[in-house]
C-alpha cells in the first residue's frame, strides 16, 4: 500500500501541496490551522484525522478554494488555488469536494443526472448537452448506480449511501486530480460505509485520483489511507505511512486516539493517556497544544512549541514525523508509569 505504483506515469510533484498554511478566523485567539505543511502525492489516499475543532475541515476547504488561508501557499497540481469567490470564469477545478451532509449538498428539486451534467458543463465550458449527458451516465455507472434507473431520480428517492455515490459522481464530473472527502461516511448506516470507502480506493486505483480523506475515525483511516496525518488544535502532531501510525503511534495524542478506537487493540498500551484527567482550563496558545492534557508535560512543553521531528527514514513517501519534546523518552516514560501503577 505504501509503495509507489511504478506503472503510473511519472509525476513531477505532489497533487496537493500546502506550505506554511495558517488560517485565523476573525475573532479566534488561537489559529484554526497553524503553519501546516502537507502534501498529497499522485495516486495516494491521505487521511486527515482529528477531533472536532482540530482544523481538518478548514484545511479541506482551503484546498478546494472555499476558504482563503490567512497566510501560506495552497497549490493543486502546482497551481495556486484561486478562492471560489474570486474566480472570474468557469474552469476545471482540480480539487473537488465530497461533503458529509449528502442531504444538504444536493439540490432536492433537480434530478441527479442533471446535477452531474451541470457539474460537468461548469468545468467543461463549450461542451454539448449531449456530451454532458453521456458523461453523467458513465459517472453514475462508475459509482455503481445504473443510469437508466437512477439518472431521472431526485435525491429524495435515494438512500443516504446512494446520495453519497451521487456526490462522488458529481465530484468526478470536474475531472479532478484530487477529491476532498470530508467525513463522507459518518452520516451513513454502518453496513454501507465500507462500500463508499471501497469506492474511494477505486478512484485511486482505477482513475488515478488522489484522495484527501477527512475523518475523526482512525479505524476507517487505516482502512483506506496510504498515509495518515494527525491534527490537533490546528497543528500537525504526527504523520507517516498509515501502517506505521496505526501500529506504533508516537505522539501522545495519537496514542490517545488509537487507544480510544475500539478494534485497534491499543487500549492497554494507551492506558496512561486514557486515564489522564481532562484539563480544567483550555490551552492558552503557549507551548505544546497537548500539554494541558499530557501526563508527561513539563515546563518546556508549556512554554515552547515542539518542532515536527522526523521519526522515520528520510525520503519515505510520507516522512514519518511527530511534534513532541519528549519523543525519544516517551516509551520509557510510559513503561515506568505503568510499573508504578501496577505496584
Amino acid at each position, binding site marked *: *500500500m505504501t509503495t509507489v505504483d511504478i506503472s503510473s506515469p511519472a509525476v513531477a510533484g505532489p497533487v496537493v501541496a500546502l506550505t506554511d498554511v495558517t488560517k485565523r478566523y476573525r475573532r479566534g485567539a488561537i489559529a484554526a490551522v497553524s503553519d501546516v505543511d502537507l502534501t498529497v502525492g499522485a495516486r495516494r489516499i491521505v487521511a486527515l484525522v482529528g*477531533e*472536532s475543532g482540530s482544523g481538518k475541515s478548514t484545511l479541506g476547504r482551503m484546498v478546494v478554494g472555499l476558504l482563503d488561508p490567512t497566510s501560506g501557499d495552497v497549490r493543486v497540481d502546482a497551481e495556486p488555488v484561486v478562492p471560489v469567490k474570486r474566480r472570474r470564469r468557469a474552469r476545471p477545478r482540480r480539487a473537488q469536494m465530497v461533503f458529509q451532509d449528502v442531504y444538504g449538498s444536493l439540490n432536492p428539486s433537480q434530478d441527479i443526472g442533471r446535477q452531474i451534467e451541470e457539474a460537468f458543463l461548469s468545468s467543461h465550458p463549450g461542451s454539448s448537452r449531449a456530451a454532458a449527458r453521456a458523461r453523467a451516465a458513465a459517472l453514475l455507472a462508475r459509482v455503481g448506480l445504473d443510469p437508466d434507473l437512477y439518472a431521472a431520480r431526485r435525491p429524495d428517492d435515494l438512500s*443516504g449511501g446512494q446520495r453519497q455515490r451521487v456526490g462522488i459522481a458529481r465530484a468526478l464530473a470536474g475531472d479532478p486530480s484530487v477529491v476532498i472527502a470530508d467525513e463522507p461516511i459518518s452520516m451513513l*448506516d*454502518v*453496513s*454501507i*460505509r*465500507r462500500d463508499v*470507502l*471501497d469506492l474511494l*480506493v477505486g478512484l485511486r486505483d482505477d482513475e488515478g485520483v488522489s484522495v484527501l480523506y477527512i475523518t*475523526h*475515525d*482512525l*479505524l*476507517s483511516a*487505516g*482502512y*483506506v489511507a496510504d498515509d495518515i496525518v494527525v491534527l490537533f488544535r490546528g497543528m500537525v502532531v504526527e504523520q507517516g505511512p*498509515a*501502517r506505521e501510525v*496505526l501500529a506504533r503511534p508516537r505522539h501522545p495524542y495519537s496514542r*490517545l*486516539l488509537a*487507544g*480510544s*478506537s*475500539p*478494534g*485497534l487493540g491499543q*487500549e492497554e498500551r494507551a492506558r496512561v493517556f*486514557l486515564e489522564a484527567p*481532562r484539563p*480544567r482550563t483550555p490551552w492558552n496558545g503557549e507551548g505544546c497544544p497537548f500539554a494541558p492534557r499530557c501526563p508527561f508535560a513539563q515546563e518546556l512543553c508549556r512554554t515552547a512549541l515542539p518542532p515536527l521531528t522526523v521519526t522515520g527514514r528520510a525520503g519515505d513517501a510520507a516522512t514519518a514525523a511527530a511534534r513532541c519534546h519528549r519523543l525519544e523518552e516517551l516509551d520509557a516514560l510510559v513503561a515506568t508509569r505503568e510499573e508504578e501503577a501496577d505496584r
Partner: protein
Amino acid sequence: MPRPDVSPATPAASAEVLRIDALEVGYVVADGVAPAVRGVDLTVRSGELVALAGESGCGKSTIAQSVLRILRPPGVITGGRILLEGEDVLAMSPARLRRVRWARAAIVMQNSLTALDPVHRVGDQIDEVVRAHRRDHGGGRHRTTGELLEMVGIDARRGRDYPHELSGGMRQRAAIAMALALSPSLIVMDEPTTALDVVVQREILAMVTALQHELGFGVLLISHDLPLLTRYADRIAVMKDGLVVEETTPAELAVTGGVDSYTRRLVASVPRPGTWEAA
C-alpha cells in the same frame, strides 16, 4: 474483549429493571398501522449495559421511546408488555408516568443541544428536574447539582454556563448528570455518543460503566456503532426490520462473528485497518 472497568455483577445487583415482552409498535398510516417493532423481547438487569444495535429504520429508537412512553403520534404501541422494576409501564396513568420518569427511568438523547434548554443555565435545568419532582411528589434528599456535575466529570462551576458554552461532550455529560438526578434504576441512551469524536465517545462510555458499577443502574444503549458496543456492552441485541435477529455477548461475537447473517454483515462491514487488503 476485555472490560477492565466493570466487575461481574454481584448476585444482589442482578434484579431485572426492565423487561420487554413481545413488544409491538407501529406507525399509523393512511390504510392502517405500519409495523416498526414486531414482537421484541429484551431484559436489562441492574448494573448491566444492554445494547440494541441496528441501522436506521430497524426500530431501535422506537423501542427507546416506547420504554418511557414518550413515543409521539403517529407512533402507537400495539401489543406486548413493558415492565419497569416489575410495574407495567403501559398500564400506568399519566400521573404515575410523570412520577416514574426521571425517578425510576431516565432517557439521554443523541442531541443534547435540543434536550437542554438553550436559554437556561445548565445547573438550573438540573435543579429544575429535582425541584419539579419534589414539588409534585415530595421525597427525600437528592444529590445537589454540583455533586451531579462533578460525578460526570464537569467542574461544578460550569453549572452557571449555558448549553452553547459547553462542548458537545460536556453537554452530553450534563444530560447524563440530569438523568442521574433522581437516582433512576434504568437509563435509556439513544445514540448518546454518535455525534462525538472517538476520544470523547470512549471517555463518556467508560464514565457511564464506572457510574453503573458504583450506583447499580441498568442501561439500555441504542447505537449503530458495533465496535464501540463490543467494548462496553454486557449483551448486544441486533435488530433488523423490527425484530431482534440475534442476542449475543461481545465475547461470543468475537468468536462467532455473528450467527445470524445480518449480524455477520454488520460485523464484516466495519472498516478496519488491513481488512481490504485481506479481502
